[in-house]
């Protein structure tokens, strides 16, 4: 590139047209400078396989209890897989492995990856397994795929995630389950009758899937509210961020930027082709809501939290060699990634704060090298708290041990197409959406490096650097 420009400079000097020459000179300087600001030209390393994202798709993310209400989780995952097959045209036996992430497991399809793959028409010779890591389950699916490829075990892996909150396993009480299991083993009628007779009204109260963190018995919303308070995030700041998310998502949707969304004909229902949770409101409307978790003085409300969502996503990950050999034009390189974990009580949602500097250090990049930021928005308060944590000298010095400047260095590049607050957050599926969005934004906005960061229940977190594939 540079030599080409130099050539044109030379030709320029003999050319009488100074205007053209000057503009080219300016262009040269601009390009030169923009290259110089990056700490590294590429993250490719000798001896390390280049692993690429070939394609990423997702079903529309819908508020739970809406159009997907009568499906099962593997149906959604199947739709995403079929969408991927359709979009890539990859032969159904050309994939080596399939991995899915999910959080709340449907007990009938506990290995939802396998059920969905079979249903989507993939060859039954392709093994599939399911991973779970709360809100970063599909991140784990993707990085597992990266691991398989890097280790030379596979060349092409499909990773994805699914979450279905319209239906969750509600169990009988432990007492009732015990009685029922004993009933199975009862040999005589007398034994059976006495067991049936032992059932009390209390046995019949059902057991809902836990919404609270197991280790601390605190719900995530409650923890988010405390986190926001710890970092002095006001209600107005949270509402403003939520409004920003919805506004940007609406704009992206209207402008057709959400190319990863596939259309899905829901059995007995219409074709769904759009996310249905994007609802830009006004600050006044949002201010009217009462706090949802900490009453009456809390700041986290229904409007500044992500909502319960149904949805599935899928990505095709390959070694660069294989992708090129199969004639694909990859979207992006998947580069360094980290997982972090911290105190699940007071730092439950600070994954990005810990993950971001760590992954940047690994990659040898700084915040200013990153052109595209995609952070998982669990709560507006959580996002703001993470940005403030990265900015806080006290937190950097006393808790975190790493100083990094947050909001100012990323705000103009941050979640520009909306985020989990507005697009929706199917727990197991969000990670693939983040990575695919980074790839698409890098293509659209012309940047080189993107950063994904997310928090997850259990006080865990994930961050990954993505590099644009040369166009």
């Amino acid at each position, binding site marked *: 590139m540079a030599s080409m420009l130099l050539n044109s400079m030379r030709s320029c000097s003999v050319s009488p047209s100074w205007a053209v020459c000057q503009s080219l000179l300016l262009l040269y300087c601009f390009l030169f400078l923009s290259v110089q600001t990056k700490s590294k030209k590429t993250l490719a390393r000798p001896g390390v396989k280049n692993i690429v994202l070939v394609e990423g798709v997702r079903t529309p993310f819908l508020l739970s209890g809406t159009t997907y209400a009568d499906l099962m989780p593997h149906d959604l995952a199947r739709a995403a897989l079929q969408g991927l097959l359709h979009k890539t045209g990859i032969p159904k036996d050309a994939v080596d492995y399939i991995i899915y992430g999910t959080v709340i497991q449907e007990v009938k399809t506990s290995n939802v990856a396998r059920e969905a793959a079979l249903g989507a028409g993939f060859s039954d010779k392709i093994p599939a397994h399911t991973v779970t890591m709360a809100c970063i389950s599909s991140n784990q699916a993707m990085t597992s795929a990266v691991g398989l490829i890097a280790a030379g075990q596979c060349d092409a892996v499909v990773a994805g995630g699914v979450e279905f909150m319209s239906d969750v396993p509600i169990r009988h009480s432990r007492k009732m389950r015990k009685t029922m299991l004993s009933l199975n083993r009862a040999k005589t009628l007398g034994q059976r009758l006495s067991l049936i007779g032992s059932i009390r009204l209390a046995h019949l109260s059902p057991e809902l899937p836990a919404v609270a963190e*197991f*280790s*601390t*018995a605190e719900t995530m919303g*409650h923890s988010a*509210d*405390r*986190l926001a*308070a*710890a*970092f*002095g995030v006001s209600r107005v700041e949270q509402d403003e961020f939520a409004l920003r998310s919805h506004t940007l998502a609406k704009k992206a949707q209207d402008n057709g930027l959400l190319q990863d969304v596939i259309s899905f004909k829901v059995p007995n229902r219409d074709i769904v082709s759009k996310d249905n949770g994007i609802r830009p409101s006004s600050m006044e409307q949002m201010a009217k809501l009462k706090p949802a978790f*900490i009453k*009456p*003085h809390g700041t986290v409300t229904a409007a500044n939290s992500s909502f319960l969502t149904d949805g599935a996503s899928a990505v095709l990950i390959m070694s660069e060699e294989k992708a090129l050999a199969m004639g694909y034009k990859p979207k992006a390189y998947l580069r360094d990634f980290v997982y972090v974990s911290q*105190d699940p*009580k*007071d*730092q439950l949602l600070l994954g990005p704060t810990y993950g971001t500097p760590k992954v940047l250090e690994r990659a040898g990049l700084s915040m200013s090298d990153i052109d595209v930021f995609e952070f998982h928005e669990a709560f507006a308060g959580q996002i703001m*708290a993470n940005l*403030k*944590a990265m900015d*806080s000298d*006290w*937190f950097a010095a*006393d*808790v975190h041990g790493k100083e990094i400047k947050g909001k100012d260095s990323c705000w103009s590049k941050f979640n520009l197409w909306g985020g989990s607050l507005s697009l929706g957050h199917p727990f197991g599926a969000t990670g693939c959406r983040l990575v695919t969005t980074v790839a698409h934004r890098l293509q659209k906005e012309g940047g080189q490096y993107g950063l994904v960061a997310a928090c997850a229940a259990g006080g865990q977190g994930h961050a990954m650097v993505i590099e644009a594939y040369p166009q």
Partner: protein
Amino acid sequence: KMAGVRALGVLSRLTARRYALFTEDDIENSVFAWSRTHVNYEVKGDVAVVRINDPSSKVNTLSVQMQKEMAEVMNEVWANNAVQRADINMIQACNSAEEVTKLSQEGQKMFELIEKSPKPIVAAINGSCLGGGLEFAIACQYRVATKSKKTVLGTPEVMLGLLPGAGGTQRLPKMVGLPNAFDMMLTGRNIRADKAKKMGLVHQLVDPLGPGLKSPEERTIDYLEEVAIECARGIVNKKIPLRKEKGTMQKIQDYIMSFGFVRNQIYKTVHGKVMKQSKGLYPAPLKIIECVKTGVEQGPVAGYLAESQNFGQLARTSESAALIGLYHGQVACKKNRFGAPEREVKSLAILGAGLMGAGIAQVTVDKGVHTILKDTTEAGLARGEQQVYKGLNDKTKKKNITSFQRDSILSNLTGQLDYSGFEKADMVIEAVFEDINIKHAVVKEVEAMVPPHCIFASNTSALPIKDIAAASKRPDKVIGMHYFSPVDKMQLLEIITTDKTSKDTTASAVAVGLKQGKVIIVVGDGPGFYTTRCLAPMLAEAVRVLQEGVDPKKLDGLTTSFGFPVGAATLADEVGIDVAAHVAEDLGKAFGSRFGGGNVEVLKTMVDLGFKGRKSGKGCYVYQPGLKVREVNPEIGDILEKYRLTPNPAVSSDSDVQYRLVSRFVNEAVLCLQEGILNSPLEGDIGAVFGLGFPPCLGGPFRFVDSFGADKLVEKMRTYEAIYGNQFTPCQLLLDHAKDSSKKFHK
């Protein structure tokens, strides 16, 4: 291993640090700060904040200075017409309790002004809000508290023989109802923030925060202040109602309470309960009932007057002096006077997973210390590990800890049958069978395994530590740590040092004990050390009393009515008749006829028949699982008949029997001080009360001698001596005190 019942509840600090917040609409951006030493006042936006904090001590004393400054600040705030509302945020306060009626009345006046403040006052509470702090808080119009474990509310005055003397007896019943108010004031127990909210003691809770822009503690207090300021604004804007809509249950309860006879029934029931539990030995609970009754039945003027007068009276009682003495003693025995040990004990190994061993493990694992519990049999180990699990699981059931915390605490425990891991142990505590040969074998086995710095502690209740140390290659690392059963309930730890025990070893043992939450006395070596040695003569006397034909129930009645929380016969059953026999025999050999009295054969025969006390189901009493009422074991009648003694009517009145029991205990305690086993009378009092259940209202054997009069005690003992001989010969130190009435153990 002495059993007994916790003599006193936790004598908590009467502490609180406070704040007050006031609103001023006219002064928008200015911040005024009047610097006084204890109370300062600053305007934040449109709210004024008054912070109360005593710079001179960790816990604030509701002192004269504090009261004066508080009154000044309040006057300034009230005088300022711009001030619309006010709220007081109380964080840690304290009521030093020795003040009298006038002080009480001044407190009452100040809190009355606060209660009637034309500008609503909100109290915000973080940390202990006890005693005067609580009375301050309940005088405010609104209360916000942090939902932290450290935040507790309570009126512990009763534990100091006092009553809440600044309006507490008058305001609490109105706020939480008669039954709850009585419960709080008569037990003095700490109430956690969430419970306080349910009771209506606080209006709103604030969650403690984690690290954020500041340290968790700082930021939590800021947050509390922010929420409290919002509350103050809300109250003025009428967004927050001060009077809560009463629920149906509350209405029904109020209706029922409106009948005089219902209230009278409550007073009667409570009075009865107090009399039953305190045997009438403690005046404070009765005075509390009286004050509440006066206030409710005759109105506030009479109520407040009764409160201040009774407060003044109680402050001068010997019971209050005794309880306050114990409080100070307890504080003193929670300090390590041997300084910081060279290295912290991070890995503790316990030999023997019996009741004691597992109990020690239980109080250690939750302090972040890696704990090895070793036994010789799998069955013994399983029982011990189950005991630790159960102890923690009971806390989970009571919601003191979550099941997750329980599991994570248990991860510090390693149960094993071999010596693996002992090479990393910083301290080994042995709780194996009380046999000098076994102890010697254990010392040698352990010393072959552990690193050179490792301390060897013996949890023996009577074997001299120097005898155990005789088998050790490094006697400077050998020490006694005498725990009391049940370890998780009994607060006392008696640490025994020999001439050879190094100071660092002692410092380390004390540090471990303090970590375990113990109140610690450090005593010299000798048969029975201090506690066992005091108890043995009393039990010997008890056996004699039984032999003289006094029924075990009657004996129990005589001891409990003297103030012992557990009767002598029951205590013997709890300790174990076999242990008692063992100790009686050992100490009898060591001290000779002075430890005589009852015939040891009585105990030995009981053991032979399997009557080993509660643990075997039969002792002086018959214990049946599930049955609370226990009958006297009919079979011991024959034994006692066999060893029957004829009582001497001159020294067999109820009172004489009581003094025979107590004087032997007290004389032995004084002798321990005389011989240098005890370091101070204070430690002697704490050991006797917290380890053996010596009547708390008497404050311990030494305070008892001071208040009863050494001369009077000696006189009684001389009478008994004339009949029974040297068991009642007063020791020299006691005689010295009897001769010179100006000599006191406690100044």
